[in-house]
């Protein structure tokens, strides 16, 4: 019989420290969904082709299915719910709704995470830059145009809010 050891993972998810017992080969995706209740992180292909499981790890958008849970030990993870909630949505989430950039909705969580990573680094992306930023996220309803429109509008709105604050 093969013995699989478990290890205690300490992880900060959307600002809150959590603990979980995880095995060495367990993916961050599995831990988030099955042990910590973060079902907003979706499993599509499970091998890095679809981007449905994208999360921000230390501020960078990564596939949770291609990251070992233990590689996120003592690190900060932001999921879709950490970007905004129904009560307090992020401009990206609002504009996705307004543009009908959600059809079946399965890719949406990953799309918004990739879009958030883009806008954090580039407040004024071109449509080409937006396309590139979401090139790791598949939408099988193929509603890409609306998704790009939504991200473009959210970036404009965020810039306006920034200017108002100044």
């Amino acid at each position: 019989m093969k013995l699989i050891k478990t290890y205690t993972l300490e992880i900060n998810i959307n600002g809150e420290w959590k603990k979980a017992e995880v095995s060495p080969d367990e993916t961050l995706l599995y831990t988030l969904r099955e042990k910590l209740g973060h079902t907003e992180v979706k499993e599509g292909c499970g091998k890095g082709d679809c981007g449905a499981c994208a999360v921000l790890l230390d501020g960078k958008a990564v596939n949770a299915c291609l990251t070992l849970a233990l590689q996120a030990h003592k690190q900060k993870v932001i999921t879709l719910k950490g970007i905004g909630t129904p009560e307090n949505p992020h401009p990206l989430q609002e504009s996705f709704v307004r543009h009908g950039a959600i059809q079946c909705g399965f890719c949406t969580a990953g799309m918004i995470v990739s879009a958030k990573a883009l806008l954090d680094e580039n407040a004024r992306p071109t449509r080409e830059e937006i396309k590139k930023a979401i090139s790791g996220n598949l939408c099988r309803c193929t509603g890409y145009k609306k998704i790009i429109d939504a991200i473009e509008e959210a970036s404009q709105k965020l810039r306006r809010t920034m200017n108002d604050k100044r």
Partner: protein
Amino acid sequence: MEYFSPRTLNETLILMKKWKGKAELVAGGTNVIPDMRARAIKPQALIDISNLKNLSYIKEERKRIRIGGLTTVSELACSKVIQHYVPILSEASNQLGNPLVRNRATIAGNLADASPAADTAVPLLALEAEVLTNQRRVPIDQFFIGPNKTILKKDEIIKEIIFSKPNSNPKMGYFKLGLRNSMAISVVSVAILMEMQEKGCKKARIGLGAVAPTPIRAYRTEEMLVGKEITSELIEACSNEIAKEVQPMTDIRGSAEYRREMASVLLKRLIRKNIERK
């Protein structure tokens, strides 16, 4: 299964010795995790080297550039030094996988995985890079020995990739032909570096991906390019020669015939583009 997260290279090497090939190194995880999922590998331990932060750097020296093995593909793609001196390497990095993968995947991982289509290997071949391990320094054209096989021994780890800065005004070009623009495994990829003199090329280096069991150099074609005026006849002759140098195979992404033909076409285009460029 056990998990280790060493903080130093020395600790890592001790663990590798202890587990003698029964442990798998994990850095970005973009190859190892899908391989475990597919049961292509069944390690008894994982040695997570992602915390060896001092193996992540891009250092510009007077004559050469040194890249730490754990540098991510995103970091390579965005590096001003790489963009300035060796745009073929930033272009290839920029087209590896997708942004989510590039944020995790490392240059050493891309090389150690040794896919015949390894994206960073193709420009690194044209740059005559060397792979520095904890034991030796190996020219990259001797590093790969077969599909997913390298000369790395069980207790050997890639520390650094080193190459000389190209001489003044080199002409470089890179093209990756895939079935789509993103998340594509290349069908054929070509990188070329030409150092020019008054008449033609003083030196030519050509790296190719996905047209042989490993990423390769096209030595005979390189030789044909040197010391002659670059005429359309010479370009034609080179493109015929490269078709003989590649040993492609047929898979779901393309047939051997198509790959051979495309290697010729892409080489022609890249040489033409290079000589048109001032």
